[in-house]
C-alpha cells in the first residue's frame, strides 16, 4: 500500500516538475503548445491529487477499521479471560460439589453396609439360636428318657433285693454259689452307680456351661440393639450432612430418614429376639433342673440298693433256696441298665455341638459388631465395592461354622456357594 502511495507521490512530483518546466518554457517562448501542455499537466496533477486523496482516504478507513478490530479483539480477549476465570471457578465449584456428593455417597454406603451386615448377621444369629434351642431341648428330653428308665430299673433292683432278703430271712437251705452269683450281678449294677455318679459330676459341668451360655447369649442379643442403635446413629449423621448440603442433599435426606426407620424396625426385632432368648433360657433352666433332679433320683435309688445289699451280705446266713429266679432278674436288670447307660452316654455327647454353636453365635455377633464399629470410626478411609457385605458375611460364617447343624440352620438363606452337602463326611470314622 505504502509503495503505491510513494509511486503516486513520485509521479506527482515528476508531473509538477514537468509542469514548472513547461510553464517556464511557455513564459519565455510564449508558445501555445507549451501552454496547452501545461494545462494537460495541471489536469494530470489534479487527477493524481484526487486519486491520491481517495487512496489516502481508503488507507485511513482501513487503519481506522484495524484499530477498531484490535480494540474489539482486546475486548474479546478480556471477556474470554473473565470467562475462563469464571469457568475455572465453576470447575472448582463443580469439583467441590462432586467431592461433597462423593462424601455423602460414602457415608450412605457405609450406613447401608452397616445396616445390611447387621440385618444379614441377625438372620443368621436368629436361625442359629433356634437350632441351639431345639437341639438343647432334644438332648434334655432324650436323656430324660434314659434317666427315667435307669431310675425305674433302680427301683426294680431294690424290689429284687427286698424279695431276696425276705427269702433269706426265712432261713432256707445253703446256696452259697447262688449268693455269690447274685452278689456279682448286683456288683455289676453298682458299678453303673459309680459311672452315673461320675457322669453326674462331669455332665453337670457341661450343662452348667450351656445354661451359662444361654444367659450370655441373652446378653448378646442386647448387643444387637446396640448395633441397631449404631446404624441409626449413622443415618442421623448422614441426615445432618445432607441438611447442610441444602437442596442438593434432599435425596440423601430421604434415604437417611428411611435408614432411621429401618434401624427402628431392627431394634424392635432384636428386642423380640431378646424376649425369645429369655423364654429359651427359662425353658432350658427348667428342663435342666428337672434333669438334675432325675439324675439324683437315680443315684438315690442305686445308693439305697447298695445299702440294702450290704445289709443282706452282713446278715446273710448260709441257708438260701430258690434264688435262681432272683439271680436271673438281677442279671437281666444289670444288662438292661448297661444298654440304657450306653445310649445315655451317646446322647450326652450332643452337648458338645450345642456348646460349640453357642460359642459360634456369640462370635458371630462379636465379628459383626467389630466390623460395624470399625466402619463407623474410619468412615472416610473406606471405599465400598458392591459385593462387600456379601463377602464379609460369607467370610465370618465360613471362619466360624464347623458343624452340620450350623450349615443346616442357614440353608434357607440367600448366601450362595458357602457349603454343599457333598462337603460333609458321612459315617463316623475315617482313616487316612
Amino acid at each position: 500500500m505504502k509503495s503505491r502511495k510513494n509511486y503516486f507521490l513520485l509521479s506527482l512530483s515528476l508531473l509538477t516538475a514537468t509542469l514548472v518546466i513547461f510553464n517556464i518554457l511557455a513564459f519565455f517562448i510564449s508558445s501555445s503548445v507549451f501552454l496547452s501542455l501545461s494545462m494537460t499537466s495541471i489536469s494530470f496533477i489534479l487527477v493524481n491529487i484526487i486519486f491520491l486523496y481517495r487512496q489516502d482516504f481508503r488507507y485511513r478507513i482501513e487503519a481506522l477499521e484495524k484499530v477498531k478490530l484490535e480494540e474489539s479483539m482486546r475486548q474479546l480477549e478480556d471477556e474470554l479471560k473473565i470467562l475462563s476465570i469464571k469457568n475455572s471457578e465453576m470447575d472448582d465449584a463443580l469439583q467441590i460439589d462432586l467431592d461433597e456428593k462423593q462424601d455423602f455417597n460414602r457415608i450412605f454406603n457405609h450406613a447401608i453396609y452397616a445396616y445390611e451386615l447387621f440385618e444379614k448377621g441377625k438372620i443368621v444369629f436368629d436361625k442359629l439360636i433356634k437350632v441351639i434351642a431345639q437341639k438343647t431341648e432334644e438332648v434334655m428330653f432324650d436323656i430324660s428318657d434314659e434317666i427315667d428308665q435307669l431310675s425305674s430299673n433302680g427301683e426294680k433292683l431294690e424290689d429284687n433285693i427286698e424279695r431276696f432278703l425276705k427269702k433269706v430271712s426265712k432261713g432256707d437251705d445253703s446256696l452259697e454259689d447262688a449268693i455269690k452269683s447274685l452278689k456279682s450281678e448286683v456288683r455289676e449294677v453298682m458299678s453303673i452307680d459309680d459311672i452315673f455318679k461320675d457322669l453326674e459330676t462331669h455332665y453337670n459341668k457341661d450343662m452348667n456351661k450351656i445354661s451359662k451360655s444361654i444367659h450370655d447369649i441373652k446378653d448378646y442379643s442386647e448387643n444387637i440393639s446396640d448395633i441397631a442403635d449404631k446404624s441409626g446413629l449413622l443415618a442421623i449423621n448422614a441426615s445432618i450432612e445432607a441438611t447442610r448440603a441444602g437442596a442438593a442433599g434432599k435425596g440423601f435426606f430421604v434415604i437417611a430418614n428411611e435408614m432411621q426407620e429401618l434401624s427402628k424396625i431392627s431394634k424392635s426385632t432384636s428386642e423380640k429376639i431378646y424376649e425369645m432368648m429369655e423364654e429359651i433360657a427359662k425353658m432350658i433352666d427348667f428342663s435342666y433342673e428337672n434333669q438334675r433332679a432325675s439324675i439324683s433320683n437315680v443315684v438315690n435309688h442305686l445308693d439305697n440298693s447298695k445299702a440294702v445289699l450290704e445289709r443282706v451280705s452282713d446278715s446273710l446266713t448260709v441257708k438260701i433256696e430258690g434264688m435262681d429266679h432272683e439271680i436271673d432278674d438281677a442279671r437281666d436288670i444289670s444288662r438292661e441298665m448297661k444298654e440304657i447307660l450306653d445310649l445315655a452316654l451317646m446322647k450326652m455327647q450332643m452337648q458338645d455341638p450345642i456348646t460349640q454353636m453357642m460359642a459360634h453365635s456369640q462370635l458371630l455377633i462379636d465379628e459383626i459388631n467389630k466390623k460395624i464399629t470399625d466402619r463407623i470410626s474410619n468412615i472416610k478411609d473406606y471405599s465400598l465395592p458392591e459385593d462387600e457385605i456379601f463377602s464379609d458375611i460369607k467370610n465370618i460364617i465360613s471362619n466360624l461354622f464347623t458343624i452340620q447343624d450350623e450349615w443346616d440352620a442357614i440353608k434357607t438363606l440367600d448366601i450362595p456357594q458357602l457349603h454343599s452337602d457333598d462337603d460333609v463326611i458321612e459315617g463316623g470314622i475315617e482313616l487316612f
Partner: protein
Amino acid sequence: MNSRILSIDDSPTMRMLIRKALKEDEYEIIEAENGQEGLDLAQHEEFSLIFVDVNMPIMDGFSCVEGIRAMSQNRETPIVFLTTVNSKDKMEKGKTLGANGWIVKPFEPEPLRKLVKVMIKK
C-alpha cells in the same frame, strides 16, 4: 505296661465318655483340656495314641497336631481327630497336618474300641 492314650478335649463329658468307652480294655488314659495342655504332655511323655478335638479354647486341635507332629519323638505317633466338625475340607486340613484319622461325634463305644486296637498295633 498298659498302652497310654492321650485324650485332648475341652468338654469334661467327652473326656469322661472316652475314658468309659476304653476302660474295659485297660488302657491308661491321660487327659488334657485344651491344645496347649496336650502339646505340653506330648512333649514330655510318651503315648501310643492321641485323640484330639478341633474346637477348643486357648489352642485348637489343628495347631496342637501341627505342634505334636513337629516333635521328633511324635513323628510316628498315631493321632486321631475326635470332633463335631464334619466338613471335608477341615478333614483334609487335618490329614495335611499329619493326622491318621477323623471321627465325627457322637462316637459309638464299640467301633472306638476296635479302632484303638488297630491303631496301637500299627
